[in-house]
């Protein structure tokens, strides 16, 4: 496919203080193609996206659109040039209807309107993003995350852009929902629009992209046609070195049963769950949003109350009434949303690490700081966190390093069981392998781990045993060796939907 150049950014450079975010980057985009932008955090992807969308002005470099030099130095100019960005965060107003959000939030919003005309124009936009069965009168807060993402895309479509930038549109979606977003992306490209697609998920790239531009250390590669790449070569280009195995080997033998869940019921579950975890085992659980995986893990963590059933830890009935009780019994829990309830972003690494085990290093309520620093220092060494930076706030770290702090803080409670939701969300490829290795090491020391993830590839690659959830019930548990990856994907989408998706 060789069509004309839609956008050409030539020799673009941008420096922030001592950081050279972009170094002489050249980036091109043809009409009607999907260009995937790949790279680790801080490699320059988001900077080039900001340049194209007019949010930042490059220090030097030129931009051409359709062969003519273009000024897109402000976001308004960029929009006028036909460039639109689908944000990761939703800019919709929850209490207003889908139609109101779609039509009234625009600069082209009519000065006065009837409810009917409003719904009619919304209808047309919704059809284009595959939401033909969604009532435009629905309040946005009643939508699923995937639907919200699609409404967000529809909002952008209302502007009739030539170039649409997707900035990690699927970060919060499960596999089945991603299919819907990818369908829309393909449709937009087939209408002759150019798509810039930023993502951490490699699977999607091979499904949707025509070409790939890889960023590394502020420099970009030549665009590469997707059929000349495979997952391994892409990852190696992203991290700039050869990749060992992404996933560590699974356990050779498992120990005694550590955690035994029998007929557990919790709010959000439709059927009681029975499953167990042995010492040295990583149990993976996966399912779509709303499948009950989150409720299951959070109940074990003591975040939500359990309604019925028994949870035995090392043979004794566990007290799951609060997080605090869970911590006392050695249940560690890393939530899916680091920013919201994982890290303390304005607080130092040291104090983030010690947050769950302050009691352990204190005498009559006074923190023994030497002991605190000592345990935190051990954790930092174990997790390759720079010990000289123990005093800097966690908010300044990359996603991967933040995740290491979130995992590391639990080592100090000497956990028996570790519950981890989405261990690598927003973590770049290099740090990802490191986190998998770390989880496996902990497991080899005798911990039992439950990993809940919407990324089936991750669950399949990392875990010893894999359980699938669908609509509030555990549908299948098998040893990893008894699954194949396509089977697992199918099980997650629960057969009928799988057929519909492809």
């Amino acid at each position, binding site marked *: 496919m060789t069509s004309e150049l839609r956008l050409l950014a030539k020799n673009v450079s941008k420096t922030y*203080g*001592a*950081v050279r975010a972009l170094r002489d980057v050249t980036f091109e985009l043809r009409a009607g193609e999907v260009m995937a932008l790949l790279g680790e955090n*801080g490699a320059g992807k988001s900077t080039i996206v900001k340049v194209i969308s007019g949010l930042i002005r490059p220090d030097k470099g030129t931009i051409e659109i359709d062969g003519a030099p273009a000024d897109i130095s402000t976001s308004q100019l960029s929009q006028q040039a036909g460039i639109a960005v689908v944000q990761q965060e939703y800019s919709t107003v929850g209490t207003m209807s889908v139609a109101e959000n779609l039509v009234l939030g625009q600069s082209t919003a009519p000065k006065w309107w009837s409810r009917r005309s409003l719904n009619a124009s919304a209808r047309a936009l919704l059809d284009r993003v595959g939401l033909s069965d969604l009532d435009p009168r629905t309040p946005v807060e009643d939508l699923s995350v995937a639907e919200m993402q699609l409404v967000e895309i529809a909002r952008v479509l209302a502007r009739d852009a030539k170039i649409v930038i997707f900035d990690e549109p699927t970060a919060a979606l499960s596999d089945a929902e991603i299919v819907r977003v990818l369908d829309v992306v393909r449709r937009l490209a087939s209408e002759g629009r150019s798509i810039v697609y930023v993502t951490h998920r490699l699977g999607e790239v091979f499904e949707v992209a025509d070409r790939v531009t890889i960023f590394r*250390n502020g420099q970009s590669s030549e665009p590469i046609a997707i059929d000349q790449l495979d997952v391994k070569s892409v990852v190696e280009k992203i991290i*700039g*070195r*050869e990749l*060992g195995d992404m996933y560590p080997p699974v356990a050779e033998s498992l120990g005694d049963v550590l955690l035994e869940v029998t007929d557990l019921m919790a709010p959000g579950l439709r059927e009681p769950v029975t499953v167990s975890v042995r010492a040295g085992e990583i149990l993976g659980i996966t399912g779509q949003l709303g499948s009950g995986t989150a409720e299951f893990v959070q109940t074990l*963590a003591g*975040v939500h109350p359990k309604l019925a059933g028994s949870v035995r830890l090392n043979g004794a009935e566990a007290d799951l009434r*609060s*997080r*605090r009780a*869970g*911590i006392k019994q050695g249940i560690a*829990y890393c*939530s899916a949303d680091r920013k*919201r*309830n*994982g*890290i*303390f*972003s*304005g*607080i130092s690494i040291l*104090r983030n690490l*010690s*947050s*769950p085990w*302050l*009691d352990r290093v*204190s005498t009559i*309520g*006074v*923190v023994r*700081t030497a002991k605190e620093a000592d345990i935190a220092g051990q954790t930092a060494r174990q997790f390759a966190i*720079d010990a*000289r*930076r123990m*005093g*800097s*706030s966690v*908010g*300044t*770290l*990359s996603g991967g390093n933040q995740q290491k702090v979130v995992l590391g*803080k639990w080592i100090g409670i000497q956990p028996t069981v570790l519950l981890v939701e989405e261990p690598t969300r927003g973590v770049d490829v290099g740090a990802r*392998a*490191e986190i998998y290795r770390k989880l496996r090491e902990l497991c080899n020391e005798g911990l039992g781990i439950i990993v809940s993830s919407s990324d089936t590839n991750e669950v399949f690659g990392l875990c010893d045993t894999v359980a699938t959830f669908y609509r509030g019930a555990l549908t299948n548990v098998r040893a990893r060796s008894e699954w194949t990856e396509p089977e697992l994907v199918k099980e997650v989408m629960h057969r009928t939907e799988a057929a519909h998706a492809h």
Partner: protein
Amino acid sequence: MPTDTSTNAATTAAISNVVGTRTRRVDLAKWALPVILLVLVIVAGLTTPGFASFDNLRAILINASIVGIVAVGMTPVTLSGNFFSLGASSSVMLAAVLFIGVFGGTGSLFLALLVTIGVLVAVGVAQGLVVAAGLNPVITTLAAGTIIYGLVTWLSNGAVITPNGADMRWIALTSWFGLPLPIYIFAAYTLVTWFVVERTVVGRRILLIGANRESAKISGTSARTTTVWAFLSMSVGMAVAGIVAGAQLQQIQSNDLPNLTMDTVAAVLVGGTSINGGEGSPLRSAIGAILIVALGNIMLLHGLPTGYRMLGVGLLVVVVVSVLHILRKASLK
């Protein structure tokens, strides 16, 4: 991971350099303002005749001690993400009334201290429980302040409460190395609160729930219990401030101390403790209190009326809070 560790190490080094400069900028945000403001006051003081004398500086510290003790005491509440107590004036007034009243009535200093601290802690904990149950702290403390003010005015009939001959002047006047006792109380209370915040489990929990309540819950910290502790710590400060104020004034009426709430909030903010919680220190609030009083003092020496003084404090708060907000935002980008 095999191969090419050198590039990797170089990248890591580059990144930690970046983080290094960032950290320095955060530290700048932390300490720049107290230092700059201190310098400003010193410069203004040098150009203001009469400012730099020992007697004047001592007067500033004496005047700052009440506001300072309350501001230091209020800091844990601010750090815990519960903003301020807008009932500070009334609470301190209540403490002074109780102290003077009980001391005058019974002649027992011990009983007076016990009742004052006990009642104030009970009132503070009650507010803490209400806030922990989910009510907005600003509304809760404002309402509590109004109720206290109303009750005291009603019960005292608006009369002036006097110590009835009991001697409490020594609390205000005992002096070592030329500095009277209230200044030492201010300093000691600041150090104790600093220790509580920085070095005790409760203090750390206060910082954690202020920094991110949800993360704190996951880490096993109860936001409710911790909030109650923060309010308890604040009410001890108010009791101490009321005792010192009572001893200094020798008498008290329900409508004394009208500007105390605003001055205290200003001291916490000028000190640079984050309104959102999680960041700041009682030490900073103590510095903030001294600065505000010093600023008022300079204006007084220049013969400016009270209105100008309040204008000055108000502007100072706006400038400091804006600058801090910008610095914090920049350092987290």
